[in-house]
């Protein structure tokens, strides 16, 4: 008994050592640390948006017709749009929305993808074949095209756009999880768990998946920025968030007609998208190196 406790401690400390080493590698990557700082900044903006924004009510569509189409000035740091809403307030208020959209898409896609991939990899045989053929179908068409079709079918709106994007985003996670499960299921500890009578679900969720977590988390991080970009693209096309929602893509679409004479309407939401995506991409880049030392030697 005492011995097994000792062993368990050892295993735990080995896992911690791995994490600590990974953290060290991540920290020593200056670019990723810059990305992390940028993300912390974005999170703070999102949390304190109602305090930071001088006119938080503009996000809900308050109009100020007398002050329409004003260039950036003291009152309106980023200028105003066609009905006099403060662009700065709307960009700030849209930060939380963009983060939520990315989070929902990634979480939904991960849930679907990991489940399908784990079942396919673990079950093997015809179940594996069937699930992977379905995955292939989704991978035959670029994600954006299917996302447009699904979101259009479900109807315009930010919720439907998120559902549409998640429904085309999972195949990457399914493929990744399947390959991880395929190699993990041959490990002795899985055989041991099976030997003492653990059920399939328990083996998958308690024994196999916890060991596959890091690559999945890394893919979630590297995908986050692109999910935000895709949602913004749908908003830009007009399928995503509808007015007056302060969604950055929709705001760019809004400012398009006034570009470039009233350049500020579309420019600032675009820069906001860039900042968000760039920060996630920097972090993802560093995380990828932590996991796969081959990619950066």
């Amino acid at each position, binding site marked *: 008994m005492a011995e097994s406790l000792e062993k368990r401690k050892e295993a735990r400390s080995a896992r911690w050592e791995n994490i600590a080493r990974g953290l060290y590698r991540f920290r020593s990557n200056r670019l990723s640390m810059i990305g992390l700082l940028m993300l912390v900044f974005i999170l703070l903006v999102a949390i304190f948006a109602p305090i930071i924004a001088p006119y938080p009510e503009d996000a809900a569509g308050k109009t100020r017709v007398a002050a329409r189409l004003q260039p950036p000035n003291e009152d309106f740091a980023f200028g105003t749009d066609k009905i006099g809403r403060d662009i700065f307030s709307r960009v700030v208020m849209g930060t939380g929305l963009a983060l939520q959209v990315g989070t929902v898409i990634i979480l939904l896609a991960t849930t679907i993808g990991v489940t399908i991939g784990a079942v396919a990899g673990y079950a093997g045989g015809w179940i594996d074949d069937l699930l992977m053929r379905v995955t292939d*179908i989704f991978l*035959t068409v*670029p994600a954006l*095209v299917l996302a447009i079709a699904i979101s259009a*079918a*479900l109807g315009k709106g930010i919720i439907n756009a998120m559902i549409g994007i998640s429904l085309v985003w999972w195949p990457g996670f399914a493929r990744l999880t399947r390959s991880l499960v395929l190699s993990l299921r041959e490990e002795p500890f899985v055989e041991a768990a099976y030997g003492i009578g653990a059920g399939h679900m328990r083996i998958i969720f308690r024994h196999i998946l916890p060991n596959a977590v890091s690559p999945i988390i890394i893919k979630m991080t590297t995908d986050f920025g692109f999910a935000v970009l895709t949602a913004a693209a749908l908003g830009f096309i007009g399928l995503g968030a509808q007015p007056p929602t302060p969604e950055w893509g929709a705001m*760019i679409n809004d400012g*398009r007609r006034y570009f470039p004479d009233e350049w500020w309407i579309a420019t600032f939401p675009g820069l906001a998208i860039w900042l968000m995506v760039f920060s996630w991409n920097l972090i993802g880049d560093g995380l990828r190196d932590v996991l796969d030392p081959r990619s950066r030697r």
Partner: protein
Amino acid sequence: MNIRFYILRRIALVIPTLIGLSILTFSIARIVPGDPVGLAAGPRATEEIKEAFRREFGLDQPLPIQYINYMTGLFRGDWGESLYTRRAVINDLRVYWPATLELTTAAVVIATVLGVPAGVISAMYRNRLPDHVARVLSLFFVSFPSFWLAMIFQTWFARDLGLFPIGKRLPVLVSPPAPTTGLFLIDSLVQLDLETFLISLRHLFIPALVLSFGAFASITRITRASMVEALEKDFVRMERAIGIPYRVIIFKYVLRNALIATITVISLNFGWLMAGAILIETIFDWPGLGLYAVEASLSLDFQPIMGIAILYGVVFSVVNILTDIVYGILDPRIRYG
């Protein structure tokens, strides 16, 4: 394995996937909670008019029958018609598709021409300044929303500097070259019409450049990683030992080994950029599939959307098959494996 058999097998494997895709798009088109018929028939349409609409488009029949009708139509070249314009989808696709193909191909070429050398340089100067610069630049550009960057570039290069045209494939007064492929660059070259060639090249450049940024980062990254891996192979040390110049080793031996992984990524990017073109086309008024797709999706016009999805699926599959064939040529081990 005989190369012809290898190619045939690859093609045969694609067919079930494409049938699956047609079922998928068909299901998407039929789960519509919105009312496409109501939209198309207009707000004042009576129930009888809508009913007539449904009958005309075969929407009153059971779903499996509708699907079978759709599939037999697909093979006969009848891809349905638009609820709005009443034009046959297949004809529309034929008109718009070459513009998108030209734009996407140009973007992939630009991304390859910039990305592969950037990856090679990164690998040669691993973890030194040029490596870091290439890495930051590629992440920097891939993070922009392409449609936004397209607006900015359009303003800078076309409107302010006047270096390039604002949009479209050709000026209104220039008639396009007689269509052989529908790709203006190739058609004008074939007809030795150098002027039209240069004009359409100038129209193509900025949209293709903006589109290419989406692929630059992944191409650079994979080239760098596989170059680094190849550089550490024993044959490199051996070649250096017998005195082959470093440059020759890099370009003749290492790059060829590294290119196999790069080609996969380039072909994947072709599909992604073809989708990204949807956004770029709306900015530059580029008369391709993108504009067509956006209009159709905003008005719930499902025959065109299904047509586009299936066309994308077919093209993407063809690109994948071509990639595998190029593999087989570059690396005989795959062909015979």
